[in-house]
């Protein structure tokens, strides 16, 4: 993916690499860049790169179980190829996997759709608000600052059988038992915690739109809905697409919220992360890493789709805009 993103206009436009007065300085600057970048890459390679690669390797092995023909306990691991993956398509393990896969997908789709709708709503209101902006901004940050595990506990408390949710609704729903209601509880808690984030990103996008665009539209007789659909939405779309991508990636790896709100080993809310975690807890590292690898691929596919198809500009503001000009400055 990284290479796709590398479309710096300067790369191709730069004149032929003939020796020039600044060449020496450029070389030094390049070496310095390498030197300064290496700690980050070293750390990322060790704490992210290595685990992911060793996870992929691990997923091709199984913990040996049982006795050999002489009655000795088999210890250690043995190579099983793609068996851990093949097992996902049949039997009990397959059932657990597809259940977790569909839960993960369900949470991601429903939560992100709701978050986006509510987030855009929040942003529009915040943008309109004339007074109390600081108060709103502060309160919008509160759900973001509450630790996910704590918000899981809070919502578990709210959703107790004799808790406040049922009191307000006048119902007796078992939200935190294993059932469809618990899926809903997770979505509610997730949406509460994260739609403010989308709201803030969209608000930043809204604030970039010059006012006269709307005035011109008003003069031309555009209704409020038309203004929203034809001006606001297209102009905040880049910010929104990136926000939605990040929310999706984050929801796909969801762990703490269902874990704390409902609990481990509950079919109705078990996500891929939780399933992998359970298997690792049972020391079946091969199976666990197979699940983790699939989740990893799932996320990669979605990120790739967003960048390629929807043109999500994940580099955004950090992209180097005028490499040509800065190059001259450094060389000078």
């Amino acid at each position, binding site marked *: 993916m990284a290479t796709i993103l590398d479309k710096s206009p300067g790369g191709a436009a730069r004149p032929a690499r003939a020796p020039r007065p600044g060449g020496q300085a450029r070389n030094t600057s390049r070496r310095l860049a390498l030197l300064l970048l290496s700690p980050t*890459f070293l750390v990322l390679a060790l704490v992210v790169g290595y685990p992911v690669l060793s996870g992929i390797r691990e997923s091709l092995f199984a913990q040996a179980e049982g006795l050999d023909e002489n009655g000795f306990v088999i210890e250690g691991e043995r190579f099983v190829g793609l068996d851990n993956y093949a097992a996902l398509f049949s039997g009990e393990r397959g059932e657990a996997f597809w259940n977790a896969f569909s839960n993960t997908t369900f949470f991601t789709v429903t939560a992100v759709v709701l978050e986006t709708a509510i987030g855009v709503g929040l942003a529009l209101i915040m943008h309109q608000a004339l007074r109390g902006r600081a108060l709103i901004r502060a309160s919008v940050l509160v759900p973001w600052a509450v630790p996910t595990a704590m918000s899981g506990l809070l919502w578990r408390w709210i959703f107790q059988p004799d808790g406040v949710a049922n009191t307000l609704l006048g119902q007796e729903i078992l939200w935190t038992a294993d059932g469809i209601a618990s899926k809903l509880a997770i979505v509610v808690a997730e949406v509460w915690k994260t739609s403010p984030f989308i709201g803030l990103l969209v608000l930043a996008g809204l604030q970039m739109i010059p006012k006269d665009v709307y005035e011109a539209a008003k003069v031309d007789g555009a209704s409020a809905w038309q203004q929203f659909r034809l001006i606001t939405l297209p102009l905040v779309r880049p910010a929104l697409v990136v926000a939605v991508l990040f929310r999706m990636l984050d929801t796909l790896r969801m762990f703490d919220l269902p874990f704390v709100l409902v609990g481990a080993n509950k079919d109705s809310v078990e996500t891929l992360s939780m399933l992998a975690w359970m298997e690792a807890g049972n020391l079946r590292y091969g199976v666990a890493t197979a699940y983790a690898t699939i989740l990893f691929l799932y996320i990669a596919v979605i990120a790739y789709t967003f960048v390629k198809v929807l043109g999500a500009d*994940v580099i955004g503001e950090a992209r180097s805009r005028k490499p040509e000009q800065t190059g001259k400055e450094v060389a000078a």
Partner: protein
Amino acid sequence: MRRKALPYLGVALILVFCLAPFYWMVVSAFRRPSDQFDSGPWPSPWSTENLEAVFAPGNEFVRALANSLLVAGATTVLTLLIGVFTAYTLARLDFRGKNAVLGVIMATSMFPGISQVVPLLKLFTEIDWINTYQAMVVPSLGFALPLAVWNLTVFFRQLPFELEQAAMIDGCSRGQAFRKIIIPLAAPGVFTTAIIVFIMAWNEFIIAFSMVNEKEMQTATVAIAKFTGVSGFDQPFGTQMAAAVVVTVPLVVLVLVFQRRIVAGLTAGGVK
């Protein structure tokens, strides 16, 4: 009339949406344990019994808070030490493949935590790192570093680098110019990034939960989730809400004080 009232209604809606659940956490924390299931809008009477229960000796909650502080603090310091140089390079130096570097750093932040945790859990078991601080700090760098590099790069890009060049013309070396001109100017951005990274590290759950099983080494979020009631069967929600208030209120205060900066940091970074 309607036009005037509508924005206020919207604001009220936002406040209720964002604050009501948090308010409920605080209210529940200050009820007497015997009133725990009251659904009145405020505690009557107010009581600190739950708070006292949080700090009861058996919970070792002070130790857990100290662990959280240590893990989140160490993660923040390490992340900034490494990230500042990388971000400076990305914002300032000209070299080929810069966007590719940004792309790779961005991509690592997209990795699911679980594909990091499972192999590391196995590795740390083998090298006896389970129940150590480094087992929590090192994996946390995986999510903290991309976030920090990202925020810092965007911040650094806005700095007036002409000043740095002026200093270099006046005879400063690049290192000196960086130390004497850029660092003081960049301090606000570094500070904002530090707050955001600290909050993310303080809120971290899956790593701390997986890498530690001894009570003395637990971070606060994990400790609270594991609180057990007297009987061991009913969940002590009052105590848990009080403990949640204890770990959340400092963050909320941070957020209130630095809201402008944090919003700028979050929207610039676009991460999480």
